[in-house]
Structure formats: C-alpha cells, structure tokens
C-alpha cells in the first residue's frame, strides 16, 4: 500500500480538473443530443460521477476527509434519484408507449 500512495505524486491537480470538466461536458452534450429519456438519465449520472471524482481529488489534495464523506452522500442521493426517476420513466412509457422526450410537449408554448 505504501507504493500505491506514492503513485499519484506526479499527476498535477489541473489534469484532474481537466478530465472532470471534459466528462462533465460530455454529459451535457448527451443531455442535449439524445431524445431517449433513459440515455438522458445516464448522461446525468455521468455528470454526477465526474463531480464525485473531482471532489475526491480535492479531498486528497487538501488532506481533508470531509470531501470523501460528501461523495458518499452524493452516491446515496444518486441512488434515490435513480429509483424515483426510473419509476417516472416507466410511468411515462405506460401512458405514451414511448420514452421519447418530444412526446411530452404539453407544456411547450
């Protein structure tokens, strides 16, 4: 384990921020590109995970364990969100027979 703790010495913090912003932007693109509600949901999971990784990197950088505890709470929240969101998607499918987000245009002006 001692060798493993030495492994990340040479990776700058900036590269972690860069990686996480790239993955976050990919998630945003996924939300804008796709019309399948499930894939939009998966893109949101991607964004949540990139922020989790960045929180962990900052937590290690500052030597403060609160960041990792926060990631734990975000994961609990994501589990609850997925359960409710997928139930809503199943409900939408039952009512409209598709998961296309363009079908749900009742509120469109």
């Amino acid at each position, binding site marked *: *384990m001692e060798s493993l*703790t*030495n*492994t*990340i*010495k*040479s*990776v*700058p*913090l*900036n*590269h*972690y*921020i*860069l990686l996480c*912003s790239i*993955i976050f*932007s*990919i*998630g*945003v*693109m*996924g939300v*804008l*590109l796709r*019309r*399948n509600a*499930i*894939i939009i*949901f*998966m*893109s949101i999971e*991607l964004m949540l*995970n990139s922020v*989790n990784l960045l929180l*962990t990197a900052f937590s*290690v950088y500052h*030597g403060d*364990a*609160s960041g*990792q*505890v926060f990631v*734990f*709470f975000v994961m*609990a*929240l*994501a*589990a*609850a969100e*997925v*359960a409710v969101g997928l*139930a809503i*998607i*199943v*409900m939408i499918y*039952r009512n409209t027979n*598709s*998961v*296309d987000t*363009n079908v749900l245009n009742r509120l469109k002006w």
Partner: protein
Amino acid sequence: MGIRYFVNINMNTFYFIAFLSIFFSILVITAKNPVHSILYLVLTFFTFTVHYILLNAQFLAVVNFIVYMGAILVLFLYTLMLINLNKDSEPVKSNMVKIAAVLGGGCLLVVLVGCLKQVGVADPVLLKDPGLGLVQNLGKVLFNEFLLPFEISSLLLLSAMVGAVLLATKDPKPKSV
C-alpha cells in the same frame, strides 16, 4: 531507481485510464442501441473505480463498484427490459440540432478550461495522510461530524423507496370523478 520507475508507470496509468474514461463516456452518448449504451456506462464507471484506487480512496472505490456498477446500472438494465424498446423507437434528430448540441457542450468545456487557465496552479496531487480514504478514518468523520446528515439520508432513501413504489404501481381501477 525502482521506485522512480514505478512512479512513472503509474503516472502513465493515470493518463491511460483518463483516456479510457473519456473514450467510453463518448461511446455512451453516441451508441445507437440503449443496451450498448448502458454497457459502456458500466465500463466508464469501472474506470472511475480505478481512479479512486489510484487516489487511495479505497472506501469510495468499493462503494462505487458495489452501488453504481452493481445496483444502479442493473436497475437501468431492468427498466430497459421492462419497457422493451425497439431499435428504431428513437427518431433521429436533425443535423442542425446535433451541431447546436455539440457546440453548446463545447462552449461549456471551453469556458471551464479558460477558467482553469486563469488559475494556473499545477501542484501535484500529493497524499499527505496515507490513511485518508480508509474505512476507519472515514467512519470516524462520518459518525462524528456528519451524524445528522447520515441519519437524514436514511429518511431520504425511505421516502424515495415509497415514492418509487407508488409511482410504478398501476392503479387497480380507474378513478371515477
């Protein structure tokens, strides 16, 4: 010299895994079949687990592995199985909308990277306390400072469970008003 060699190998490991996470996350949003999309998401989350291990956050690595890859993505797969999507069920968007979406996401990325350039600090991520991400240390913080949020999150999970069951069950008979 042996340690130096090892450090270099693992630095390259970070960049390799980072490349893999970006590659798989692009595949998630471009795959035509939703099942393939979910499988690519599993691979993306696996690379995230490797990132956590490289950061020596062992507790988070295990939780990410079990909760995300084990529970959440299986939930996604089951939902996909329940709603039985055909391959051509998703209509293609026009090219105009696709270009606009990629441009929007790219603008966000440019703004974020521009902010990062302004900061301009490139200190290496150095693990000061080797026991930082271990279960013992995190448990002490979780049950001392964050005891109340921890208990409240159980309430959140309970209400989410009740809400999901309530949403997903069919009405036995249509309500007559």
